[in-house]
């Protein structure tokens, strides 16, 4: 899994390099970092507690389908 994260960081740097090179507008950078932020927020939420229930379980608990 560490390999995947390293790969993603490398791809992210390549993306950013290309975005700067092709002079993308500010909105592209904002959307890019916002989506990355969402991904990091989900991973922090999920990994912060090793006993946390899965998303499927949480959704099923909310709608009462947890028999």
């Amino acid at each position, binding site marked *: 899994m560490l390999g995947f994260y390293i790969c993603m960081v490398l791809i992210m740097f390549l993306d950013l390099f290309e975005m700067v090179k092709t002079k993308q507008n500010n909105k592209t950078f904002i959307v890019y970092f916002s989506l*990355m932020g969402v991904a990091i927020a989900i991973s922090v939420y999920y990994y912060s507690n090793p006993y946390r229930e899965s998303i499927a*379980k949480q959704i099923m608990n909310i709608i009462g389908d947890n028999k």
Partner: protein
Amino acid sequence: MEKTSNKISIKQAITISLMAIFATIIRVIPKYCAEYAKEGTWLTVFVGVVPFLFLIYVLSSLMKNGKELSLEYAFENILGKWAGRVLTFIYILVLLLILAIQVRFFAEKFCSSVFHRVPIVFFAITILLATQIIVRADIQKFARFMEVIFPIVIIFIVVVFLMSISSVELKNLYPVTTYHIPGILKSTYPLMRMAGALTYMLFIGNKISDRKNFKKEAKHYTIFLVIVSLAIIISTIGSFGYKLIQNLSLPYFMVIKNIKILSVIERIESVGITFWTITDFAMIAMVFYIVTELLQKQFKLKERKYLVTPITFIGFILTISISANVFELEKFSKGPMAVVYIITGYIIPVILWIIGKIRKVI
């Protein structure tokens, strides 16, 4: 295929949808339909095709026979700008969830069938990185690949059907009596979840050149859908019976594994897994492409390819956090997600079509 622009033909678009639908048919249909229809499962295909044809009519009407660019513009046209945009964002969230579920099922399938000791994370990463490469490029390349592979998959399914005929027992498919009618009608419920693939595909209607032929082409491809579904249902239910099928995690894989002709042709499951992987790849890539395309259009960005890396990251995190194990995933997919599939793939387009008709905007 159109050569002057970066567009694909409606035939190619429907081919991608069908390849994605095959992934669902192979995994879901024999197992879930057998629960309701029992021996009469093979008849559900003929009943299930009726709502599917109605959806084709509704989608074609929503697209105003090709005048609308894509489905989210139809949403905005019918519901107004903001309500349409909110609905599109709901679709984006649902598609992200579908992406995570499909990737997880792909990984779980490999772990439970061939590579028992390999962690699911490995397969999730592999498919996401492979999909990322194709989604970064134009949809033309993906469509061309699917166009080439589509007849090969159809031929493989037909060959498997012919080879498995020797193990099909008529007692597993008969008798079908009037008592089966409620079960058969009920079993269209799992079938309707497939409709989503066709609905979601129209979100990239602006990339499709001859949208006015949608109804005609979709009807033609429905014939393939019926033949393939029938071949898969008969070979699985006919070989194992409806009771055993419900307890098997991968019924179609077991059918392929059991094929043995004259002690010469046997152990062809590796070929089966290959084609199954391609259908899963089609589903994952299609959903991935639509998510990035919708986000690009909603945020009015110049380039779509810069959204691929963040979506890969979100997709991966959701894939590993979606469920603790395959049983939970199956329960979630069969329960709440089946309802979501039907609402987003079938009910919302039909409701919008009714609203559009009342407001006389379509």
